[in-house]
């Protein structure tokens, strides 16, 4: 490793950081003013790249065509952001924060399919930047001119933003709103215009960030979630709402990554460590460290007043097992009613498993007030643990399934130790970071996990080979798991969790160690998610890193939100509707995601309390009349 190679990697890292800064700045700006965590920000970045690609093709590969395309993409994406704000988010600012998140997630799904329809699934490689397509020799290394341009553009943009925020009336309003939202209303400012404007600027920044990557990165459909994860990390490391913070964080992460690549494989204390493989997780490690040392990021301030997850309402009564038992029994009879319908059996098995998965997430999100964006980590870890224990350690499947939840619980115990130190959006993003680390480890540990191919031959023993028998086993175990979790919610422990959510101040003042209880709840939820994961592995016969992916985590999030956070049975309804709908749609159309996204949007706009919450409210309205 020479100084020159470090420098080359450093410049490369900084060039990448400039786009990341733009996305993160946009995300931060939007969050600061509107308190919306825009999950679709990565999608806007991706669209920016696609739009720039097509515009260059149209205008021609000349300097004017290229820079024209960048400008066009920026404006188009900005306008799209404003449209999203006007059409969707404006209607749900008063809904709980999580619903806004769900809505922006639906936008992610729709945008992905729109991009698929217009640009297809193939990667599109953009042109070099005309006029900047050569390389410059620095210390014997060839550095692309374009990279140097990017390194200059980012600070200029920061300067421009800073001037706009400190020297203009608009900037003063944005800063005022970021510090105190009520104040803006009091100043007699049109909040709507301000919010739409902020969305325009924030989205335009994402579009610009994407467009500028045209010569460096092929446009592809996986960029949305990859970029949003990176942007979360940068915003959280920098401090939510702080644009200079985003800048510093982007550079910090860019530099650390560059060093890892430059280090390559080194032997430390006789151990071969591949630092270049570390790049996938290193930004998340940086984030975990920063958050533990500075819980609100490098330049962030403690949030003034965090709203609780939902409107605080009482928990409904504890579900009575005498009422649920016949229902479970009825489900168990279905294989007799439709003996040849293998599809139905698979669907029911999936629903049972994902119900447990969703309920375990709900325990965290609802009564404990901890939103996890990364619950799939435990699902995935347990699936792998079970498969590895059986295939590589040669343990019987029954033992593997019994042990796997403990492995997931142990992992959750480690991650949870960090996570419970934070709250709100910060906690959510840290869970996402840990999930992404988990995914990366699974993805890269070829010898143990089979890497991207996953593991196959994960079949249950003969007595469970019949799909019906496996369904029954799953049904019983999942029903038991859900029953235990529900019972826990109404136990002193569950109440204490709720106490910590309702009023941390009061909870502490009556001797409750909220953090410790949350930590334990985190591990417990992870373990039960793990039971689901282990059962899932053997129901499919093969597993892949997908099981620990962000997509899997957001699936669970959507299930819970769809069903309603402030309900008890909601997550099951959410899991059933989600799984069934996804299946039905996926069989009918290639564009199932967008249909699904539109369904979510419709539900969010119609039932801001979730499906079960919404139905319960309708029922209450109808009942007195009848």
């Amino acid at each position, binding site marked *: 490793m020479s100084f020159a190679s470090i420098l080359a990697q450093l410049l490369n890292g900084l060039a990448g950081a400039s786009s990341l800064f733009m996305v993160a700045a946009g995300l931060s700006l939007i969050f600061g003013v509107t308190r919306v965590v825009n999950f679709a920000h990565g999608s806007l970045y991706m669209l920016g790249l696609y739009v720039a690609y097509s515009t260059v093709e149209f205008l021609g590969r000349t300097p004017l065509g290229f820079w024209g395309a960048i400008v066009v993409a920026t404006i188009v994406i900005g306008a799209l952001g404003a449209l999203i704000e006007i059409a969707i988010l404006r209607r749900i600012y008063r809904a709980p924060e999580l619903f806004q998140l769900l809505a922006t997630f639906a936008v992610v799904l729709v945008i992905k399919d729109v991009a698929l329809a217009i640009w297809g699934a193939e990667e599109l490689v953009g042109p070099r930047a005309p006029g900047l397509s050569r390389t410059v020799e620095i210390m014997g290394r060839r550095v692309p001119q374009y990279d140097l341009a990017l390194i200059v553009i980012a600070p200029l943009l920061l300067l421009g933003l800073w001037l706009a925020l400190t020297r203009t009336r608009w900037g003063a309003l944005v800063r005022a709103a970021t510090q105190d939202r009520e104040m803006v209303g009091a100043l007699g400012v049109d909040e709507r215009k301000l919010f739409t404007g902020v969305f325009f600027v924030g989205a335009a920044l994402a579009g610009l960030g994407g467009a500028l990557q045209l010569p460096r990165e092929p446009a592809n459909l996986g960029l949305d979630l990859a970029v949003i994860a990176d942007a979360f990390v940068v915003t959280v490391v920098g401090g939510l709402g702080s644009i200079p913070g985003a800048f510093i964080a982007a550079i910090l992460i860019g530099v650390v990554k560059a060093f890892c690549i430059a280090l390559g494989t080194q032997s430390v204390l006789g151990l071969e460590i591949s630092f270049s493989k570390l790049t996938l997780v290193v930004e998340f490690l940086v984030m975990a460290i920063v958050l533990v040392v500075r819980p609100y990021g490098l330049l962030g301030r403690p949030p003034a007043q965090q709203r609780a997850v939902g409107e605080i*309402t009482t928990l409904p009564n504890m579900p009575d097992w005498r009422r649920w038992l016949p229902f479970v029994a009825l489900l168990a009879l279905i294989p007799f009613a439709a003996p040849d319908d293998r599809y139905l059996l698979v669907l029911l098995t999936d629903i049972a498993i994902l119900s447990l998965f969703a309920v375990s997430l709900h325990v965290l999100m609802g009564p404990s007030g901890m939103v996890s964006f990364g619950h799939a980590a435990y699902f995935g870890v347990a699936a792998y643990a079970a498969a590895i224990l059986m295939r590589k350690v040669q343990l019987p499947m029954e033992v593997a399934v019994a042990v796997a939840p403990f492995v997931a619980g142990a992992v959750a115990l480690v991650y949870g130790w960090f996570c419970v130190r934070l709250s709100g959006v910060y906690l959510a993003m840290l869970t996402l970071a840990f999930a992404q680390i988990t995914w990366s480890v699974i993805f890269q540990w070829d010898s143990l996990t089979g890497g991207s191919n996953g593991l196959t031959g994960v079949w249950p023993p003969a007595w469970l080979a019949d799909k019906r028998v496996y369904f029954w086993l799953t049904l019983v175990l999942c029903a038991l798991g859900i029953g235990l979790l529900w019972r826990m919610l109404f136990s002193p422990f569950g109440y204490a969790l709720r106490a910590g959510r309702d009023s941390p101040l009061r909870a502490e003042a009556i001797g409750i160690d909220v953090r410790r209880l949350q930590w334990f709840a985190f591990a417990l939820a992870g373990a039960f998610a793990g039971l689901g994961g282990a059962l899932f592995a053997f129901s499919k016969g093969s597993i892949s890193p997908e099981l620990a992916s962000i997509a899997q985590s957001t699936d669970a999030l959507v299930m819970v939100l769809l069903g309603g956070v402030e309900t008890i049975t909601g997550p099951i309804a959410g899991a059933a509707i989600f799984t069934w709908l996804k299946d039905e749609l996926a069989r009918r159309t290639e564009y199932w995601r967008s249909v699904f996204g539109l369904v979510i949007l419709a539900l969010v706009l119609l039932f801001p309390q979730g499906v079960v919450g919404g139905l319960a409210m309708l029922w209450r309205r109808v009942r007195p009349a009848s």
Partner: protein
Amino acid sequence: MSAPVLEVAGLAKAFGGVRAVDDVSFTVVAGELLAMIGPNGAGKSTCFNMLNGQLSADAGAVRLLGRDVLGMKPRAIWRLGVGRTFQITATFTSMTVRENVQMALLSHRHGLGSLLSRASARHRNEADALLGRVGMREQGDRVCGVLAYGDLKRVELAVALANDPKLLLMDEPTAGMAPKERIELMALAASLAREREVAVLFTEHDMDVVFAHADRIIVLDRGRLIAQGEPAAVRADPQVQAVYLGSGAMFGHEVPA
């Protein structure tokens, strides 16, 4: 006189340049009602927050039953027998009134680790008895989120009593109540102090309440303790009168808020 339950010596706290609490010393003995009065921003709540461990102090000492408690967590201080009500009520809004008290009882009996029993069935009668004392028994099944402010204050008192405190800290316990209710609530606190030998430290803006029930009064102004003693002596203190000049509050014609 019995031994002091609470001894405060040289307590100080500054926020930036503001000396919120500045070299404050006093003691409270068992069975005594000590009123801490002073205009808005005098540092009363800040003082309370240091006593129960919510805020760290810049200097000074706080001894509870002879034990140094400065630097301990609120939950540890609570376990030593300190009950507290907040100026801005802090209750579990998603739970019923009774469940709020049950939580404090459960925590006091180290029962929060139970994962399978029903929380709402535990210590029910005891919770009702406590609620009865503060006149909230009939509202036991109501959710805290919908209660009137004065009622929330009563719930807080019941919660604060759940661990059989040796010291009760009440920050403006009667704010938001009608005058008659105020007198009743403080009469209750006074009888508790006498019967159970509880030391009570409270802040209060209603001087009728203060002079009707306090055994002794300490007066804070801009963080400094400017007077302390029997009510009559404090009332006659010229410095205290100067602080309260114009408000008329010292002389029993409180301006309704």
